[in-house]
C-alpha cells in the first residue's frame, strides 16, 4: 500500500527535475548561458545608454540591467520548467506521476520547487559574473533580500503560468504559447531606460504593465532606495494567485484527458 502524500510527491518530482537539470549539460548549459549572454549584451554593449540626458541611476548601468536579467531569468526559468512538463506529458512520463500521486497538486508544487532551484543556480552564476564585471550594489542586506524575494515570486508565477499551458496542451508544441506572452510582458517594460524616459505608445503600455513595477522595485532595492515595493509585491503575489488557479485548471484538464 502506498504511503504517498502531497509532500512525498512534491519532493520526488522536484528531485527528479533537479537531478535531470544538474546532470544533463543539454539542460544546464543553456539555462546558464542565456541570462549571462543577455547580461553581457545589455550591460556591456548598451552601457552608453546611461549617458542619455535625465538617465538617473547612480548605482550604474550594470546594476540597472542586472535587475532586468535577474527577473528575466526568473521568468524564463519558469517557462523552461513548463517545457519540461509538456515533454513529460508528450512522452507519457506524467502518467507515472499522475498514477502515484494521491493529491496531484503535489506534482505541480514539485515542478515549482525544481524551477526555484534552477533559478537559484542561475542567479549564483549571474551574481558572480556581475560582480566580476564591476557591478555596484548600494542596497543593504534587507534590500537584496527584497530583490531576490521578488525574483523568487516571479519565478513561481511564471512556473504556474507555463504549467497551466503545458497541462492544457500536453505537448511541447505549446512552447511558444508559454514563452511569447512572458517575452512580451518583459520587453514591454522599461528594459533599457527608466520609465520616465520612454515616450509614445511604449510609455503607455509600460505604465500599466505589472513588470514595470517589478523592475522599478528591483532597481530600487539594488540602489538602496526602495520604490513601489508594495505595488510590486502585490502585483507579483497577485500573479501567483492568478496563475495558481490557471495551473489548477490545467491539472484538472489533464486529469480528464486521455
Amino acid at each position, binding site marked *: *500500500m*502506498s*504511503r*504517498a*502524500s502531497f*509532500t*512525498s*510527491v512534491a*519532493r*520526488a*518530482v522536484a*528531485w*527528479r527535475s533537479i*537531478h*535531470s537539470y544538474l*546532470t*544533463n549539460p543539454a539542460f544546464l548549459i543553456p539555462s546558464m548561458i542565456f541570462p549571462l549572454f543577455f547580461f553581457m549584451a545589455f550591460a556591456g554593449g548598451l552601457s552608453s545608454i546611461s549617458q542619455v540626458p535625465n538617465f538617473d541611476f547612480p548605482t550604474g548601468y550594470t546594476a540597472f540591467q542586472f535587475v532586468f536579467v535577474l527577473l528575466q531569468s526568473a521568468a524564463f526559468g519558469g517557462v523552461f520548467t513548463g517545457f519540461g512538463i509538456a515533454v513529460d506529458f508528450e*512522452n*507519457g*512520463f*506524467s*502518467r*507515472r*506521476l*499522475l*498514477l*502515484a*500521486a*494521491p*493529491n496531484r497538486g503535489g506534482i505541480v508544487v514539485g515542478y515549482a520547487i525544481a524551477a526555484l532551484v534552477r533559478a537559484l543556480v542561475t542567479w549564483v552564476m549571474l551574481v558572480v559574473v556581475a560582480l566580476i564585471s564591476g557591478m555596484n550594489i548600494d542596497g543593504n542586506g534587507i534590500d537584496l533580500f527584497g530583490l531576490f524575494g521578488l525574483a523568487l515570486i516571479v519565478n513561481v508565477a511564471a512556473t504556474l503560468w507555463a504549467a497551466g499551458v503545458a497541462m492544457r496542451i500536453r505537448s511541447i508544441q505549446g512552447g511558444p504559447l508559454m514563452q511569447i506572452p512572458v517575452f512580451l510582458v518583459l520587453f514591454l517594460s522599461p528594459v533599457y531606460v527608466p520609465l520616465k524616459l520612454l515616450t509614445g505608445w511604449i510609455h503607455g503600455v509600460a505604465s500599466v504593465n505589472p513588470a514595470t513595477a517589478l523592475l522599478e522595485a528591483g532597481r530600487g532595492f539594488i540602489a538602496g532606495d526602495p520604490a513601489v515595493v508594495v505595488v510590486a509585491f502585490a502585483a507579483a503575489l497577485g500573479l501567483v494567485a492568478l496563475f495558481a488557479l490557471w495551473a489548477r485548471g490545467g491539472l484538472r484538464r489533464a*486529469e*480528464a*484527458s*486521455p
Partner: protein
Amino acid sequence: MTADHPASIEATGLVREFKKGPRAVDGIDLHVAPGEIFGFLGPNGAGKSTTVHMLTTLLPPTAGTALVAGYDVVRQGPDVRRAIGAALQEAALDPFLTGREHMRLQTALHGLPPDVRIARTTELLERVGLEDAADRKVGSYSGGMKRRLDLALALVHSPRILFLDEPTTGLDIQSRTALWDEVSRLAREDGVTVFLTTQYLEEADVLADRVGIIDHGRIVAEGTPAALKGEIGRPTVEIVPCAATDREAVADVLGRFGERAGASPKGVAVRLAGGEGQLADVVRALDAEHIPLEHVQLHAPSLDDVFLAKTGRTLEGAGDDEEAVGQVTGETETVAA
C-alpha cells in the same frame, strides 16, 4: 466501501465517450475477485486501454461506476491510487535516469522510508533481472528491459491490485515467458489481483484465471478459458494419409471417434467426441488398419475460436503474434508420421 473491502475490481455500466468519436467503452460490467488474474482480451482499438485508464483513475468515465479495492474511481481517486500499481502500454520512463534512479523516484513518490527504499529497490531489481543494468541510463535499455523495469516500478509499494496494459507487446519469447512467470508468482504467492490486457490469445490462455473478451467497447464473452473454449466445441483431429486412395479407409476409422469436420483437400477430420484424450486411440486404430500416415494434426478450440464465434471475425492483427507465442504453448499439436 472502505479499505477493509477485499482487493477487487467491480465495474457497472462503465462508459467512456470521446468527443467526435464512438464510445471507446460502451457499458461494460466487470467483477474481478481478489487474487485473481483477469485477462482482458481484444484487438487493437477494442477499448482495453481506455478501460484500464478509467480503472486506474487516469481517465474519468463518462457514465457508470467502478470500484477498485473498494474505492470509487471518481470520488476516491487518491485511495484507489494508493492501492494499485500499473504498468501501462508504453513504459513511461525517463531516458536520462538509470534504472536505480527510477526506483528511487518511484519509492520516493510512494513515500517509502529511506531505508525501505534501498532494500525494496535491490529486491525488485534482482527479481526482474536488472541488477547488472541498474546503473545504466534507461535510454540504453532494450524493450524487454524497459518492460521489466516498468513492472518493478509498479510493484515498489506492494500494491494489492496490479494493472498490466499489454505488458508483453514487442517482447521476445524469453522476455515474455519470464514476465508471465513473474505475474503468475505475484498472484499465487503474494495474492496480488492482476488485471491484464492483451491481444495475445495464448497470453490470456496461459496466465488468466478468467478472461473477458472485449470488442468495439463491449464485453462479448467472459469466463475461464476452459469454459469459454468448452462453449465452442470439441477438438478436431485431421489425418492426411500417405496415399490418397486411403482417404476412405481413414474416414471409416475416424468415423468411430466423432462427426466429420472440415479438412484440407488431402485430409480427413473429425471432431473428437471424447476430447483430446482420444488422439492416441485414433492413432492406434489407424495403425491397426495398416494405413501409413503423412500428417496428424490436433486442433484444440482456442480463444480465437471463441472470439470468432462471438464476433464473426478473428482477432485483428493477432495472427503473427499467435505464430510466435504458439511455439511456447503448443495450442496446435502436429505430428509428422
